[in-house]
């Protein structure tokens, strides 16, 4: 019995446990091992080996998920530019833009609509993708709001979203010389997906993007590096919701926001 079984283990039992056999073949092997302690034992051992191997799998850190989405978005953007520059009209337009830029720069940096440095959206995306540690972890918007108001000394509101985005916590993040904070929510889609709400004390006279009216609020929508950003203003404070959600999902989320 043992010699035969030994051959069975080596050539068949692994393949059997690996799920390589058809239902019919499986039934045959099962019928054999039902009568054979040695083979039953081998099967169990191989099963426990496979389970141990599966336990050695690791999940990708959130930062890897985020960086990857960013990289794909960048590649899309790159493709757009290279395709655009194959057309003579775009080249002409681009040349005109360069000319205009030269003219603008020659006129000095005093233009009020163009503050030096990055835009708020750029900063927001950088903070969102950065996965920076939280200063204050909280699942309850009320306590996070209290903590932020105390730290920032401005009347910020930490919204609650009915759509399943759950508060994780907040981090103080000044954007240039403006006081601000980044509020992080996890999304029900799981796998580390989250949205960030950047709160900044009145940083810009004009919000970026296209304006839409949603739930009695003026919302500006824009897109930076593959992230959708919805911004609104409340009591001189600008709130920007940053995520990799589709525009529609972003709007639904904004609509579901409860500003307490």
């Amino acid at each position, binding site marked *: 019995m043992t010699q035969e079984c030994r051959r069975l283990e080596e050539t068949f039992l692994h393949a059997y446990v*690996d799920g390589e056999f058809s239902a019919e073949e499986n039934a045959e092997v099962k019928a054999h091992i039902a009568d054979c302690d040695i083979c039953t034992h081998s099967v*169990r051992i191989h099963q*426990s*080996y496979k389970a141990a*191997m599966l336990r*050695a799998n690791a999940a990708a850190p959130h930062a890897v998920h985020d960086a*990857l989405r960013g990289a794909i978005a960048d590649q*899309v953007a790159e493709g*757009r530019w290279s395709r655009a520059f194959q057309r003579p009209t775009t080249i002409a337009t681009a040349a005109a833009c360069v000319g205009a830029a030269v003219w603008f720069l020659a006129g000095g940096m005093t233009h009020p609509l163009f503050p030096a440095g990055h835009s708020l959206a750029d900063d927001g995306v950088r903070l969102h993708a950065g996965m920076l540690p939280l200063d204050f972890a909280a699942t309850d918007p009320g306590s996070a709001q209290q903590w932020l108001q105390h730290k920032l000394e401005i009347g910020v509101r930490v919204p609650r979203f009915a759509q399943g985005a759950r508060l994780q916590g907040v981090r103080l993040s000044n954007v240039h010389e403006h006081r601000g904070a980044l509020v992080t929510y996890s999304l029900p889609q799981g796998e580390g997906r989250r949205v960030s709400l950047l709160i900044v004390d009145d940083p810009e006279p004009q919000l970026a993007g296209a304006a839409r009216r949603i739930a009695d609020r003026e919302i500006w929508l824009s897109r930076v590096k593959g992230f959708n950003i919805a911004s609104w203003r409340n009591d001189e404070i600008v709130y920007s919701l940053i995520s990799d959600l589709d525009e529609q999902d972003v709007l639904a989320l904004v609509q579901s926001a409860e500003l307490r």
Partner: protein
Amino acid sequence: MLDFKHTDRTRREFENLSLDHLDALYSAGLRLTKNERDAEDLVQDTFLRAFRFFDKFERGTNMKAWLFKILTNTFINKYRRRVKERIVVEGAARESGNERFVTREPTESSADPEQYFFDKLLSDDVIRSIDQLPIDFRLVVILADLQEFSYKEIAEILDCPVGTVMSRLYRGRKLLQKNLLGYAVESGVVHGKQAMEISVAAEVEEEADVLQLKRRA
């Protein structure tokens, strides 16, 4: 302008199909490169290549297998050189026909699934043992045991016959289990005496020698 929309749609379709496999690719990348930085780079390279060649992907076929083919090719072409691994295929595990990972007789304790040797192992020991495998064995073991691909899928991913997959897998597993036993004794998960019981038919002298050494140590 239409072009732009098309790219966004393509990107969404690609992300929908591919991002579910990110954890699997990262996990495999980690065991291939053995460090997080290279794994991250490898995975990102893989996804960007896949996106670039997404029009070559036959819709409705196995996306995970397609991504893993790109992952392994990218690894072999680029990272393997970086990691500077010696390629030891033949001869790394000498034919070890009767080496078996069973007790000679099923014992009472082994009737309880909780009592199996592999159930007690620390994941760190499993990881160390995988990392020790020569690359060709490591590849098939990762694909079969960490990612649960079928032999046929592995053959397609690695571009080799199914028979080669099976023999590499068999020998890779034996080699890995041998490493594992060593680590398990070292980290005290099993004792030398237990290990003697667990492991290995008596006719495998090489194995017995290893165990003797472990017991003396």
